[in-house]
């Protein structure tokens, strides 16, 4: 492992950290425009973080050390998960450290501590958010795994870089299995990142909260870290979808030109994805909680069909 590769890994992490608020701002901008508003500036999330880091941090009397440690653990595990996903280039050593199942494990670690923090204060909001979050994530896991399996059985690997390389090397092929796996993964991403129609990221009404309920008691730098982690998660799923299923443009060598092309490619793809997400969030309404299992069953069905298409139509090879 040469040091240039490790510097690139750090650069990727930095790009994720700085780019995630921008992506969220872009989605909010699209939604605002569709709702006939001008929308906040694209730099607003950065200003929000600046404000939050300067504010006082309050912790309830009933909170324990888990509450205080959770923001760091959630932020850390999400950032680590981001380092695994290929953003600019393939062939980075971080892909060898952790494969896609470990990525799911990192996100699960973050979710574990987020829900524990929700239950720590001793009010009803946090418990409710925790319970709902665990339900949604439990139902999303098999769908996500099935989609990952379809990818892995085609590429014979769970290493994200290998999967993207396999896709690049075989050229433009319309695989029904990939299409269904992509659709399933998009639905899972919506559920896991807490977007409409599963959860409303801008609400504070207890009947409609899942993610926000667990963050209700956080303030100051703790809240900033949690929000940042949520934004990182959105960018993580976005990059996963665009760079693994449609990897054209990503750098396969570490020259500055290839990296610049890779950066432009991923930015373009993310802008398009953000546009689609904004349109979908504006057009759909949030479902009540017990319709979420149906939504996730649809995701599981799509992923299962992807797997069955792989076995039946693509000869399983």
């Amino acid at each position, binding site marked *: 492992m040469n040091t240039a590769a490790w510097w690139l890994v750090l650069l990727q992490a930095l790009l994720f950290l700085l780019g995630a608020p921008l992506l969220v701002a872009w989605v909010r901008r699209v939604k605002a425009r569709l709702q006939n508003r001008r929308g906040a500036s694209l730099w607003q999330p950065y200003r929000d973080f600046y404000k939050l880091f300067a504010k006082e941090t309050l912790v309830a*009397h009933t909170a324990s050390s888990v509450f205080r440690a959770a923001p760091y653990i959630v932020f850390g595990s999400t950032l680590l998960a981001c380092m695994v996903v290929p953003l600019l280039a393939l062939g980075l050593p971080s892909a060898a450290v952790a494969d896609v199942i470990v990525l799911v494990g990192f996100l699960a670690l973050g979710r574990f501590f987020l829900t524990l923090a929700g239950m720590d204060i001793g009010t009803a909001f946090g418990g409710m958010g925790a319970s709902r979050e665990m339900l949604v994530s439990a139902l999303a896991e098999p769908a996500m795994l099935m989609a990952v399996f379809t990818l892995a059985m085609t590429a014979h690997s769970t290493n994200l870089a290998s999967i993207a390389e396999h896709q690049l090397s075989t050229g433009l092929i319309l695989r029904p299995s990939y299409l269904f796996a992509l659709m399933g993964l998009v639905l899972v991403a919506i559920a896991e990142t807490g977007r409409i129609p599963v959860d409303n990221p801008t609400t504070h009404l207890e009947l409609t909260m899942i993610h926000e309920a667990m963050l209700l008691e956080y303030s100051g730098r703790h809240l900033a870290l949690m929000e940042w982690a949520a934004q990182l998660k959105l960018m993580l799923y976005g990059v996963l979808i665009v760079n693994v299923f449609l990897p054209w443009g990503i750098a396969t060598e570490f020259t500055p030109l290839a990296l610049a092309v890779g950066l432009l490619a991923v930015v373009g793809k993310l802008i398009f994805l953000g546009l689609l997400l904004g349109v979908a969030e504006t057009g759909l309404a949030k479902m009540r909680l017990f319709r979420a299992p149906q939504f996730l069953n649809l995701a*599981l069905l799509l992923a299962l069909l992807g797997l069955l298409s792989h076995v039946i139509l693509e000869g399983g090879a």
Partner: protein
Amino acid sequence: MIYNLPPALLFAYAAVLAALGSALIALGTARVPGFKTLMFILLGLSGAAAVVAGLAALSAPAAAVAELPLGLPWLPWHLRLDALAGFFMLIIGLVVMAVSVYGPGYVRDFEHGQDSLLVLGVFTGLFVAAMLLVVLADDAFLFMISWELMSLSSYFLVAFQHEQAANRRAAFIYLLMAQIGALSILLGYAVLAGFGGGFAFDAMRATHLSPLWASIAFGLGFVGFGMKAGLVPMHAWLPEAHPAAPSHVSALMSGIMLKVAVYGFIRFTFDLLGSLQWQWGVAVLVVGSISALMGVLAALMQRDLKRLLAYSSVENIGIIFISLGLGLIFFATGHPLAGVLGLVAALYHSLNHALFKSLLFLGAGSILHATHERDLERMGGLLRRMPWTGLFFLSGCISISALPPFNGFVSEWLTFQTALQAWLLKGGVMRSLIPIAAAVLALTGALSAACFVRAYGIAFLGQARSRRVRRARPVSRGMRSAQGFLALLCLLCGIFPTTVLQWLNAVPQQLLGRGLNEATAHGWLWLTPIAPQTASYSAPIVLLALLLVWWFSASLLRRGKVREVRRCDPWGCGFSDGLPSPRMQYTATAFAQPFRRVFGLLFHVDERVEREEPGLRHQLQITDRAWGLFYEPVGRWVQAASRRVIRLQSGNIRVYLGWSLGTLLVLLWLIS
């Protein structure tokens, strides 16, 4: 003579003798109070000796065999300490060591009670000795004797607090199912012995059975060992018996006795039966998947902490059998690398489960010791009253939810990697079924994380829901250090998987002729089970990266005058009365309500809300469908059959003499 023994066998003998010695010393605890500590010291030495014996066996080039002149005149006791036996001795030893450090503090509760410590001590020692002998046995006779001794001594331990009717009933069900399982195992051995040359395992290994008889033997062995391991639908005794026993015994039962059943299955199938058929693998995979899913869903519905842990054991045994099934399928269809990977994943998960389940049971015992509460709905806020127990219980919860960087994650990762090798198979049906089983495994992993968030969040976080829990005091240092020891082992087994796999490698090497050298081929830092391009995981780098990021964010972002944190009241919707009452928190039943609603079909859920002045009354009853579908029909059939047999007892002496005459005539005719 002692100097001729291989060191592994020497330590194994020492372990068994120390356990028996502990039982013997326990006989005197009524008279001499100091004997209690001595009893636990001997138990601890037994555990340590077992650990050393296991490690020696894993590093020895060949199995160590011995023959003891005890037993029947024409069938002495054969003992064999090969890598498989050594691995399970290691598991037994580690948990016994932890329990022996935990024991003295915990049994102080029983000293002044109605139940005598003598019974507890004697049968604990016998239990441990029996388990060690099961693992060492190399012939069916010694195996069955030690197996029965294990079941009987644990029966007395389960029935220890026999004043409560629930414990008596639990012990009865436990004994009944243990006997039925033992009968099935005995019949399995009978098939092998009948076709072969005798009861020694060496003779059974050399036998070649026809595929039909091999399948019959496999079926009998699977039912028998599965019943002891707690596979659905033969699991009904687990959630009754494990909570009824004292907590450190529950740790022994859940942590090691279930693994001894797994050992028995592996020995029976992979070693004695030899030629494997892939249909067996499919059966094991299906039963394992069902057990995993039903176990974790039932665990989510429980209020009693120990029952929750017992059902979670059912889930983890299901996961072990999923890996075993995958290994069987791959090995039988001619893919040895994937087959060995499946076996290794199952063994790793056995070690992990022994460690974290014992940790969790010891934690539940600490809670029981400090608050006399087992009901989750009455706990809360224990992390501030019992910080060390809380920390160690948290490590147990993280491990069992299969989260990096702890050990549960590594074995689940290996299981998923095994399942991903499904592309090697030729049949499309198999290629679809294995990923579906892997999706079920993913579902159970997520559900078990939900279950343990619920258990930890309700018990340790939030505010206390009852007076006794509000006044809980930390437990003794011995109890805490035992839990700390297990938690540290959980972390180490998660951070250094390559080291564990290097020790473990001897098992498949001796059993199947092929080790998993690919896993550690790229140095201690990288875990690459098949090949580096296929999948790789570097646990130490992950831990380092996690620590770096945490340190970075903690130090970089706590700057300026806002470093300190101010305490305040939680958000109570604007009411200014101060803290919300503990009754406003989410209860364990409420947390599980979405799961009850989504998965309720699989159980018999009886939920009623009635108006009862001055408010409402909520009643919830959840029963396992296995009772209605499986156990009650069997019970009814047995009763109907026995009613018919009772007609033989007519009470007339001439009828009885007639029966004797008839039997004599038949026997004489057979002899002639």
